[in-house]
């Protein structure tokens, strides 16, 4: 029989020290002020334990050690009985958020909070690591630019007073189960006032249930599946156009071209959102007289799609559509090139609108169409601080050094919608805000925002973009376009 290795105390201590040092290092690694974040969280004051239940008092700052903003007391909003402590203004939210530590612009440092009567805390679990880390990062940037731009302009006005926007994020590791748990944690432990959506259909779906149970509204901009809104939930609102619209514009656009396409091939990932898009597109194509010659689903996140591309090539369709994700769209174009698959048009639900599509495909990205929720050339004239898509584009690029994708824009739009709803409600308690959201009807830099009874923004049209000579050109609908589609796509050998 084998005995256990004897672990000396020294070795164990070394391990413990290393672990502790590592976590601390990790904690301090990127922080602008290394002491702020750990100190605020590690030295909690037990005096605020009362907040565990529905203590309405937020007048005495619970953690005086944390942030300068904590010394300003917020006017007490009576806690709504139904939801426990929800709705309490949280001036000391900085104890857990430390918003200044991360904000790149000095103007957003808590010092500027001197003019604020308090703060409103928005919470979101976002995928900062894992399979959708890229999109999660864009989502977060969208929320951050909203927070900073509005805070610089004086925050949100509620009843004549200005409130600072604070955000609290957790990393859900692209794991929808964690999204749900962390949303619950945000509501019950961090006492967020309102919820912003996570990235992705699956996470949004799970979080919508948490929001519904807690009766706290969630405005989300990254889950377009009908299944999110077919549950009869009352607290989930999506600012983006729903799934069936994703590729409809491409078909309308193609049918207006010469030569007119007659056949179409559709390849879809097998996750619910992609399937919804593909099914709706198939029906729409058939209703417009197109013949669907190939329709196939593949396991989500496949990147070796040579087999279906070979099959599609054999069917020789005029139009090729894919409903999937960024990595798959890149793989399909590469493999179409390798296999010499020529269609008159290639279009994707997701992919072409993200800059990576072009940076990894280079020339092979040209002529490809993509459905998009938003582009910077759209001609909206919004009633918000960003006003026009062009202006948003410039501000975003100045702040982050790269151009915004539609994921960023729709995330920012969630925040903008909240500002409108809170100002309309004159309160940031969940219930009045929810009711105000349901009644919203305004124009933003992102397009019209108005929700139907399911919480879907069916009033916003989608656009079609095409890569032309390494640049994205919006080609459809004609009244929002800044260029004409190039049709048909030249064969691979002649590009």
């Amino acid at each position, binding site marked *: 029989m084998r005995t256990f290795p004897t672990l000396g105390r020294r070795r164990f201590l070394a391990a413990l020290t290393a672990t502790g040092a590592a976590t601390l290092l990790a904690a301090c690694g990127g922080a602008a002020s290394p002491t702020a974040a750990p100190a605020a969280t590690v030295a909690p004051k037990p005096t605020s334990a009362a907040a565990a239940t529905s203590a309405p008092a937020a007048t005495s700052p619970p953690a005086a050690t944390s942030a300068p903003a904590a010394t300003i007391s917020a006017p007490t909003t009576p806690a709504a009985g139904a939801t426990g402590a929800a709705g309490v203004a949280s001036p000391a939210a900085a104890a857990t958020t430390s918003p200044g530590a991360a904000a790149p612009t000095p103007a957003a440092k808590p010092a500027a909070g001197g003019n604020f009567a308090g703060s409103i805390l928005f919470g979101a679990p976002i995928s900062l*690591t*894992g*399979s959708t*880390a*890229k999109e999660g*990062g864009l989502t977060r940037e969208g929320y951050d630019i909203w927070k900073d731009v509005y805070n610089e302009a004086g925050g949100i006005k509620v009843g004549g007073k200005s409130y600072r926007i604070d955000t609290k994020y957790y990393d859900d590791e692209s794991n929808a189960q964690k999204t749900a748990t962390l949303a619950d944690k945000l509501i019950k432990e961090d006492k967020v006032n309102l919820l912003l959506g996570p990235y992705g259909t699956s996470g949004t779906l799970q979080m919508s249930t948490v929001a519904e149970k807690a009766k706290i509204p969630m405005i989300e901009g990254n889950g377009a599946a009908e299944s999110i809104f077919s549950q009869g939930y009352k607290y989930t609102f999506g600012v983006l156009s729903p799934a069936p619209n994703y590729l409809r514009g491409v078909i309308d656009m193609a049918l207006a071209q010469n030569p007119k396409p007659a056949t179409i091939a559709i390849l879809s990932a*097998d996750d619910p959102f992609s399937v919804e898009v593909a099914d709706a597109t198939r029906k729409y194509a058939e209703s417009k007289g197109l013949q669907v010659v190939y329709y*196939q*689903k*593949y*396991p989500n996140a*496949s*990147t*070796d*799609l*040579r*087999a*279906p591309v*070979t*099959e599609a090539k*054999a069917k020789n369709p005029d139009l090729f559509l894919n409903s999937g994700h*960024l*990595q798959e769209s*890149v*793989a399909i174009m*590469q493999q179409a*090139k*390798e*296999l*010499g698959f020529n269609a008159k048009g290639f279009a994707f639900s997701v992919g072409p609108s993200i800059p*990576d*599509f072009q*940076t*990894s*495909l*280079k020339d*092979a990205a040209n002529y490809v169409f993509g459905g998009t929720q938003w582009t910077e050339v759209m001609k909206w004239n919004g009633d918000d601080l960003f006003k026009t898509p062009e202006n948003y584009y410039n501000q975003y690029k100045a702040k982050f050094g790269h151009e915004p994708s539609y994921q960023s824009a729709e995330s920012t739009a969630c925040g903008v919608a909240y500002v409108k709803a809170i100002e309309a409600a004159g309160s940031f308690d969940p219930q009045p805000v929810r009711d105000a959201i349901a009644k919203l009807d305004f124009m933003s830099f992102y397009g019209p925002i108005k929700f139907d009874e399911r919480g879907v923004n069916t009033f916003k049209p989608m656009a079609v973009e095409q890569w032309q000579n390494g640049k994205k050109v919006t080609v459809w609908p004609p009244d929002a376009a800044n260029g004409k589609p190039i049709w048909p796509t030249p064969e691979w050998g002649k590009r």
Partner: protein
Amino acid sequence: MDFLQHVLNGLLQGFMLGLVGLGFSMVWGILNIINLTHAAFIMVAAYATYFAWMGTGADPFVTLPFTMAALFAAGYLLQRYVINRVLQSSILTTFLLTFGLEALLVNLALQLFTADIRQTKPPYANESLVLGALRLPYTQIGAVAVALGLTIALYAFLDHSKTGSSIRAVGQDRIAARLMGIDITRTYALTYGIGAALAAAAGALLSTTNGFAPTSFGVYNVLAFSVVVLGGLGSVPGALVGGLAFGLIYEFASVYALPQRDVIVFAVLILVLVVRPTGLFGREWYR
């Protein structure tokens, strides 16, 4: 013609998978660990190749030997100073350690390189040799050459060199090998280094065929595992044959039942295991 193209797709992808499986098989066979860090080595090599090409325009096939050498050194040190500490514990312990190392490397890569999608794009990337209606992508032809070359080289090395013989001896009987005066620790580190170098070769080639991000490579652990099981543990040519067989099964499962592709692939795999547990080429010479 479609049928022939499918066969070609399967075989070309099969050589790549064989290359991925080769190093995995070595480490599994000799050290008896399921090395989940394998996919991370592929990732590191892919980034090294990409940055070398971005910085200097160096062709991935030119930088390949250097990438392999670097990863060999990294693998050698990792085995010598980290993995070796728990090598004698249960298979699950080493499994978890290599999993942790993989996650660590992937997360570090996410921080350093971000999740942006990248691709090494020499002029011939995603271009194909056209043979009538058939298409053979150049990078995949290159992969065939590299996979074949490395398989033969590894086979010759294990069979004919003194170091190779000592590696095999350690694989067959660790205690006896030690009694014969073989430095076990060094041999293990050497083997692990070779495994990492082979992963590096695969990574360099994969960086030219597909766009990739740090999280793109995890799937290659499962693929390598399957390839080795199919080809048979303990056989160098087995890994290549396993790769080819797997490539073909995968391609045709994709043609006839794409949404249920993995059901078919694993049903075949389990069937092979139940009927012939040592795989197609399996021998016992590693243990």
